[in-house]
């Protein structure tokens, strides 16, 4: 509230942003420039991505070599590892913390801030032709709320009792009391951290929505907006409406833990299923929050690298909106086995089935976009095509689980784990690779090294599939998820070789990521210098210098056409920038119709 007030004061004092050099702290740390905030989000969440990956690696050690001493385990405290003469063996309570923190960190601190924090901030103002976000200072606050949330989350590893251990879904009543999990303060830190992070996302969402609605350049009509911006806009609406539900539930759970209220505690009459309903009412829109921006990024890259207009632009937009809406009525598919009314299960099954349709539209439109295109198979395109390929697998495995009777068997098995990673790693993360590589020149003014990227791509796509494809088979054999030592079950013991195979592939996969990390940092300083528009793209962000100056556009851009006019016969090149005046009108400045107030079609 008062921050919005300050925003106004700030805007009133500054009026136009002036272009003189800002002191270091204002430029790099407490910056209000959306591009700098985007980079800040990027560095912090890449750090968390690495942490999440390391947690997964430890998990995979235990699963590949159950009960064997973990290399380097002696370095960890006794609360996590039991020391033996041969080395340290992982404790089950630490395994539970690893699963929980891996899921939480990957979803809330890596993928979500990368997609929304990085690409939302970077792309929205640039692609719609705005100088900055509607509320630059709120934008800064959004980032600086996320940082303490991350620190709280990580610090929970160090507290008595360890980090939260009730799964990233934190089902009550397990999560209510340390009596059940053995985790006390850690669970509360988890709740507090996510509440703060939620507030950060909320502030960001308010900003994005306002910006997209009100700050578009003249001529940038709704149906001339690039799909990435469309996807981020719908994502922001999902965040705006879903996160408060999570926040409410988190706070109630926190009260249950600390002051002893009874919302989710059955012993005093509370309802454990109420937690699940609230969590998944948020949780399912959340997984679409994690895929929609990825889809937007991929649409952008594919159309550009295929030098062909996106196939069915309007239906792509409608599909985004459709996913956004349908996402609200399917949450019950996570609760088929929860003791929820089985009749309700049927309605949730039907709505879940229906949500495959907009995804189908998008998939086929991508295929049709590369059909008869002129494909430039450089690294962003490879990552983007990998997205399509992997998302199909992850999406199709969703159909198995959506069918209630089949879900009876595969619910809470590794089949679900395979689904998660096909949509989140094969999907979102590959799109993030595509996006970072594609917009790297815009962010840093340099290109990433193409050879290294291709090496990384080749290694990752192969190893990734070696890791996660077999998890389907594990699930079909009945291996439960979140299980510390599957060899405890006689019928699962034969799965040992396959688990070991997966684990070895994971170690190689993680090692392969160092190629990308090296390339990333090396290219920031040493990469080949990039021109303003290295990909011959149409959208507005490529009309300005790389990296764009404060205020982005030296003068207000005017938009004449949609973003995907590639290979248009009207243009003499194979691209046709959105700002290039049509040949019928002479490109003389005076003749451009009043640029400042948008025409009625500006809505």
């Amino acid at each position, binding site marked *: 509230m008062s921050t919005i007030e300050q925003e106004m004061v700030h805007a009133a004092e500054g009026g136009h942003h002036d272009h003189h050099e800002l002191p270091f702290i204002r430029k790099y740390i407490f910056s209000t420039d959306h591009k700098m905030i985007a980079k800040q989000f990027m560095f912090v969440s890449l750090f968390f991505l690495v942490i999440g990956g390391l947690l997964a690696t430890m998990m995979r050690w235990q699963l590949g070599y159950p009960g064997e001493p973990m290399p380097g385990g002696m370095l960890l405290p006794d609360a996590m590892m039991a020391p033996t003469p041969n080395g340290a063996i992982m404790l089950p309570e630490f395994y539970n913390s690893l699963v929980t923190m891996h899921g939480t960190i990957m979803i809330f601190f890596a993928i979500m801030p990368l997609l929304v924090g990085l690409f939302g901030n970077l792309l929205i103002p640039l692609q719609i032709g705005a100088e900055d976000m509607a509320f630059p200072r709120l934008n800064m606050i959004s980032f600086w709320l996320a940082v303490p949330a991350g620190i709280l989350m990580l610090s929970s590893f160090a507290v008595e009792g360890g980090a939260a251990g009730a799964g990233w879904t934190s089902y009550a009543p397990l999560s209510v009391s340390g009596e059940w999990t053995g985790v006390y303060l850690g669970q509360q830190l988890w709740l507090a951290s996510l509440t703060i992070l939620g507030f950060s996302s909320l502030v960001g969402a308010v900003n994005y929505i306002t910006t997209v609605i*009100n700050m578009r350049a003249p001529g940038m009509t709704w149906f001339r907006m690039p799909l990435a911006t469309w996807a981020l806009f719908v994502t922001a609406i999902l965040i705006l409406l879903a996160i408060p539900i999570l926040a409410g539930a988190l706070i109630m759970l926190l009260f249950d833990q600390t002051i002893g209220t009874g919302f989710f505690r059955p012993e005093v009459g509370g309802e454990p299923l109420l937690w699940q309903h609230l969590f998944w009412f948020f949780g399912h829109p959340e997984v679409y929050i994690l895929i929609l921006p990825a889809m937007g990024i991929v649409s952008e890259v594919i159309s550009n690298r295929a030098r062909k207009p996106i196939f069915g632009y309007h239906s792509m937009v409608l599909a985004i909106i459709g996913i956004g809406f349908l996402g609200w009525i399917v949450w019950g598919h996570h609760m088929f086995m929860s003791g929820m009314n089985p009749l309700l299960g049927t309605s949730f099954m039907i709505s879940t089935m229906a949500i495959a349709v907009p995804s189908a539209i998008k998939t086929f439109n991508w295929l049709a976009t590369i059909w008869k295109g002129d494909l430039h198979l450089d690294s962003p395109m490879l990552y983007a095509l990998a997205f399509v390929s992997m998302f199909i697998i992850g999406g199709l495995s969703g159909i198995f689980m959506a069918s209630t009777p089949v879900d009876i068997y595969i619910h809470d098995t590794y089949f679900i784990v395979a689904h998660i990673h096909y949509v989140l790693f094969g999907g979102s993360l590959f799109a993030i690779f595509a996006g970072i590589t594609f917009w790297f020149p815009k962010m840093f003014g340099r290109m990433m090294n193409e050879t290294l990227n291709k090496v990384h791509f080749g290694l990752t796509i192969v190893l990734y599939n070696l890791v996660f494809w077999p998890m389907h088979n594990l699930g079909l054999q009945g291996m439960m998820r979140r299980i510390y030592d599957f060899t405890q079950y006689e019928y699962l013991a034969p799965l040992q070789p396959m688990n070991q195979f997966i684990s070895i592939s994971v170690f190689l996969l993680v090692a392969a990521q160092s190629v990308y990390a090296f390339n990333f940092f090396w290219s920031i300083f040493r990469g080949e210098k990039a021109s303003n528009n290295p990909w011959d793209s149409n959208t507005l962000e490529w009309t300005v210098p790389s990296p764009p100056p404060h205020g982005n556009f030296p003068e207000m851009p005017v938009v004449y056409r949609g973003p995907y006019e590639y290979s248009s016969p009207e243009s003499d090149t194979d691209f046709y920038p959105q700002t290039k005046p049509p040949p019928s009108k002479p490109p003389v400045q005076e003749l451009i119709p009043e640029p400042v107030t948008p025409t009625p079609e500006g809505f």
Partner: protein
Amino acid sequence: MTTQAMTAGRAPMPGMKVYNLKLGMWIFLLSEVMFFTGLIGSYIILRFAHPEQFAAPGQVLNINLTAFNTFLLICSSVTMVKAYAAIQQGDQQGLKNWLLATIVIGASFVGVQVYEYIALAGEGFVPIADAYHAVGRHMPHDGPAIGGQLYGSTFYTMTGFHGTHVSIGVLCLCFTYWRAAKGAYTADNLGGVEIMGLYWHFVDLVWIILFTIVYLV
């Protein structure tokens, strides 16, 4: 200093035809709606599932006191809107007076609520479920505390979060007053007052619903 300034140099109100600050506030209020939906929804569900844990209206809560409090909040909405009407006419003195009235009434609301909490807690109506002698599901409570375990939990959470919103509102009003005293608002530049009003009326609106659901139904 016009709305131009408030939209960071952009044409004042494209798209929504509402300037940025106001649009941002409305969007923020939508998320607040969802937040209270979560809390009120939980209350409705717990109450339907366990009617035995919820004392009848008026049995524990003091309806008349809270009806008076509701009246206070409604009055503060009027004073707020009057403040806005004053600055629309460029009447800075009027703005300050009405804002001051809003602050005083808003603060009184919080005061009455604190008094109510203390009184209720004194009688043994508390948010702590374990303070009740519950014997398990479907069993009526018996013990020193009144009301019911879930009743206590939901009542304090819902009204508490509303009270927090009012308190934050009062703080923001003080800030607005301070800015008004510096003469920051004019007939052309009253965005700050208008969005303050939006927030304040929204808090009032939530209370209108809460009062009916919690105290009367």
